[in-house]
């Protein structure tokens, strides 16, 4: 791409460094900003810069937060005896969106994969164990992807997490709601048959 302006070129490179943004899209965004009022763009840039300056990890659950302790951890109405362990921040958002969970979270920041150079020390596992052993925790829910790396992580945490009175559970795996059986992949369907559950009636799980 040939640019008449060095300023445009630099801005395009900056946008194109973002995930999911190619050079064409970056150019579109930059040209749009170039046509805006300077104050509006200042505000835009300031919002991004302010976010980065202010954002931090929650010191308890490692979720992103504006404050040292995040909104979820600080909320007294939430069930403090439940900890849901997830890989990343987006998983927290996904589970929050369901409206079905009123406990706390713990963000690991990934899963164990020696091939990728990720060992237990690179993840927030020690702080999870401390939280669980500090008392008051009844259940640790593993909401981790059912991949080999995910399974390893669950195994490892369950081995390390030896605290009296703390149950470890994993989220259910199987056929999705509203999904057609015949379109389910064989592995999922097979496991779902093996791990079938007693029928409770009324459609209520």
């Amino acid at each position, binding site marked *: 791409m040939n640019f008449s302006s060095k300023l445009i070129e630099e801005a395009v490179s900056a946008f194109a460094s973002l995930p999911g943004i190619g050079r064409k899209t970056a150019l579109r965004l930059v040209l749009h900003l170039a046509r805006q009022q300077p104050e509006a763009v200042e505000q835009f840039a300031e919002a991004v810069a302010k976010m980065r300056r202010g954002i931090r990890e929650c010191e308890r659950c490692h979720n992103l937060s504006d404050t040292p302790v995040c909104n979820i951890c600080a909320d007294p109405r939430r069930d403090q005896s439940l900890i849901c362990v997830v890989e990343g921040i987006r998983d927290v958002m996904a589970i929050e969106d369901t409206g079905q969970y009123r406990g706390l979270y713990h963000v690991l920041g990934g899963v164990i994969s*020696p*091939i990728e*150079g990720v*060992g237990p020390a690179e993840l927030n596992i020690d702080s999870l164990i401390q939280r669980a052993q500090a008392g008051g925790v009844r259940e640790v829910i593993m909401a981790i992807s059912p991949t*080999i790396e995910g399974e*390893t992580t669950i*195994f490892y945490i369950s*081995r390390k997490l030896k605290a009296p009175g703390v149950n470890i559970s994993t989220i259910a795996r199987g056929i999705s709601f509203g999904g057609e059986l015949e379109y389910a992949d064989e*592995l999922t369907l097979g496991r779902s048959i093996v791990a079938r559950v007693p029928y409770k009636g009324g459609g209520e799980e």
Partner: protein
Amino acid sequence: MHLQYFILTNFKNYESQRIDCSSQLNCFLGRNGMGKTNLLDAIYYLCLGKSHFNLPDSLLARHGADFFRLEGCFTLEGRQERIVAKVIPRKKKELERNNLPYQRLSEHVGLLPVVMIAPDDTYLATEGSEARRRFLDNTLSQLDNDYLQQLITYNKVLQQRNALLKQMADSGRYNAALTEAYDLQLLGPGRAIHQARQAFMGRFHGLLQEKYRIISGQAEAIDCAYDSRLNETPFDQLLEESREKDRILQRTTAGIHRDDLNLSIGGYPLKRFASQGQLKSFVLALRLAQYRLLQVEKKAIPILLLDDIFDKLDNERVRRLLGLLLEGGFGQTFITDTDENRLSAIVEHFGRDYVKYAVENGTATKIQAP
């Protein structure tokens, strides 16, 4: 089951080629290096999603081309199955069945059973144990897709475990709990694979001896024993016992990835004691038994690919092999040869429907029957 036609685009030395097949016998004639074997490999690729010769996709694209495409139209139990492989080496590999891309390539394995018999098959006896495990895995994967899934899982866990052992050695910190996490994940697939291999050998053994007798014309006893440490010791115990050794050697030393087949003839190891002739008979018998087993246990009769075997085998064995082929029971067959007269004699012998192609530098031309 048979292949109706297949189309190669930028595959090996073919730029663009369509081959219409006979449901019975198909012959590819041509001098060495003209691309006869590549046609067989294209069929193999369509059946199993990879090359028979263990070549990476980057070596399968025609020189200078950045992609290749294979299309094959099969008839399976009266239905039409159109398989298309679109491959951009190192970037994209897609396999479609009736215009529907597979989510996982491994799901395709087993749909279209195939056996290739090639002159360099003696590697099965002369090379290391990996060659024989591949033979086992290839056969079992075609028979049972669950076996393949277990194998894929096992290998992924094994890779992670080995990477961990290496890292722990580098950092000097041993993490027993994490090692154990991998051990536990190896157990399930490891046991399933061991069981499947053991059961397979029970069915395979008799077939192998029968085929060897026919091919060699000899009554000498041959054996093909499944050698696995899991035969005597439970897998969990093995892993525990090898923990220290694994730690020092920085890799997993026990498990089904170390299994082997002990091939022997008259009680002596094949590799060291057999003559060239016995060796060839043995591996040919292995392939024919593989074919027969697939045929018996799959609903579809496998496709048989015979690569240049008449050139490399002596007349006596060729005669016996042809006898076997003539006896029937074989499905669609593809043969390559360099000698037109020899091939014509074989074809006439067969008295079956056939198609002949002349292969010349990446172009195959149909030879009209006189």
